[in-house]
């Protein structure tokens, strides 16, 4: 409990500092959200202002990548939620008089997360693939740009490194998904 309190409060303190430096940041960068690069060129400020700059630059690409996935996850979650809400144990829980919020979140939602976990794990590799385009659009210099320029220059080393790293990440995320199954459904032993 004390750890939770500490995390919560340090978060609040951080937020407070960021909010305090927001006017100074605005005076340095009058239009806070720009579309090119991971940081504004020639931006000079203290630690908080530079962090705010990075955060605002991150906003648009993150939103874009998120929007791409949201539709898929929504449909998968809906389908598996519909499946689990018609199960017998939901009716049993309701018959026992468990309140509706517990029924939805503890009984139905938790069980419907299992197929969604699989999709999220598989989607991770696809998200890295999708970030190739997002990096090109927003002018970031990340993994995707490394891959694209390497392939454009017929330079095999960056391309192989990209494939190796994203492949390893995909395998890792599938492993995490397998571990999460056991957390979500204690009947599954790892």
């Amino acid at each position, binding site marked *: 409990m004390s750890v939770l309190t500490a995390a919560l409060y340090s978060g609040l303190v951080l937020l407070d500092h960021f909010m305090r430096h927001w006017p100074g940041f605005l005076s340095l960068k009058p239009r806070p959200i720009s579309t090119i690069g991971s940081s504004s060129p020639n931006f000079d400020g203290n630690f908080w202002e530079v962090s705010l700059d990075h955060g605002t630059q991150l906003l648009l690409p993150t939103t874009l990548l998120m929007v791409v996935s949201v539709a898929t996850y929504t*449909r998968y979650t*809906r*389908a598996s939620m*519909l499946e689990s*809400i*018609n199960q017998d144990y939901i009716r049993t829980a309701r018959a026992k008089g468990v309140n509706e919020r517990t029924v939805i979140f503890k009984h139905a939602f938790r069980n419907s997360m299992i197929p969604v976990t699989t999709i999220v794990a*598989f989607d991770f*590799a*696809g998200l*890295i*693939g*999708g970030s*190739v*385009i997002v990096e*090109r*659009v927003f002018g970031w210099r990340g993994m995707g740009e490394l*891959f*694209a320029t390497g*392939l*454009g220059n*017929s330079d095999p080393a960056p*391309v192989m490194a*990209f*494939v190796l790293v*994203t*492949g390893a990440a*995909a*395998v890792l995320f599938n492993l995490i998904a397998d571990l999460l199954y056991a957390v979500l459904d204690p009947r599954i032993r790892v």
Partner: protein
Amino acid sequence: MSMNRDPQNDPAPAADLAEMEDARLAQREKSYSQGQLVRRRFFAHKPAVISMIVLLSIIVVAFTSIGPTGEGGWWGKSFLQTNPVVDGGRPTMFRDGFLGEYPFGQDNNGRDYFALVMRGAQQSLIVAFGVALSSTVIGVLVGALAGYFRGWVESLLMRLTDTVIVVPLLALAAVFGSYAQNLPGGTLTLALLLGCVTWTGMARLVRAEVLSLREKEYVAAAAAMGAHPARIIVKHMLPNSVGVIIVNATFAIAAAILLETSLSFLGFGIQPPESSLGLLIDLNQNAFTTRPWLFWFPGLFIIAIALSVNFIGDGLRDAIDPRQKRTGDKRPTLRGVLGFRGSATAQQRLAARTGGTPDDDSTHDETLNLGPTPNPQKDDDR
């Protein structure tokens, strides 16, 4: 025999009951073959039919307007020929008559943008259908072999599939796409190579289908009569899994359009001076604020093709899968597909509350006349 006797006091002999059922069935409706049933269900799916009309007209217009080779269609302008730029390349549609000289405007070099977009649509469609064809062939082959033979064949093929899945699709496709640039054959080569990347989903689906089919009695009977495995797979298993295959091939077309678009956008797909929808967007992405039509028209065609192919796939899935019989109330309507199913249900509830019976709605169109659904939660469209 009289139809209105009391069933409790005078139970009919079983044979008579069966005859009665048969007579009723024969009287009520004529019977249909499987193909007829699928066709009827597909044509009852309004969004799919509309999408099919849209897609067919796009195909016809794209291939006849400037000709399949880019020369000599009814449009009369080539996508390579440069003309003097008129009025900053603004589209003349609806301003200068209905279409005008350049309905979609002109690009930097004064090339007719309508011809460019049509050429792009041609190339994208060729890639899409080529990818769907080759990925379906590879996927069905791998899946059927793995599912039928089990053992080390299955381990080998499925590990191969996993290896392809684990690498991001776009990365693998970009490598194959940049490799295809040095090969002869142009767009079709690119399509066939891209098919070597996107077959994994089909392979897994067909394997699952074949795994369940190989336990069926007719497969055991064919094997007992000494049929060759190739014959069992081709004659017994694939016809029974054709629904899954067709539906996924349709969705593969939509995915391939988007894949080709992203590849050309990154510069690893189709190369200039050839045109493709993704390439047009890539070349003109900086013109978005100043000359947005260079961006809108190819984008519009990408969306139109991908959406209509997806709707056709939805319609085919509903038509072919007999397990989800969606007739009458359950049939997907235009509104339902567009995401307004809730509003129709709400109106229906409102009608029920104000005392109207479902029959009162019979003057409205079909989307309104949903009628009471016995279990609305089963009505998911996945």
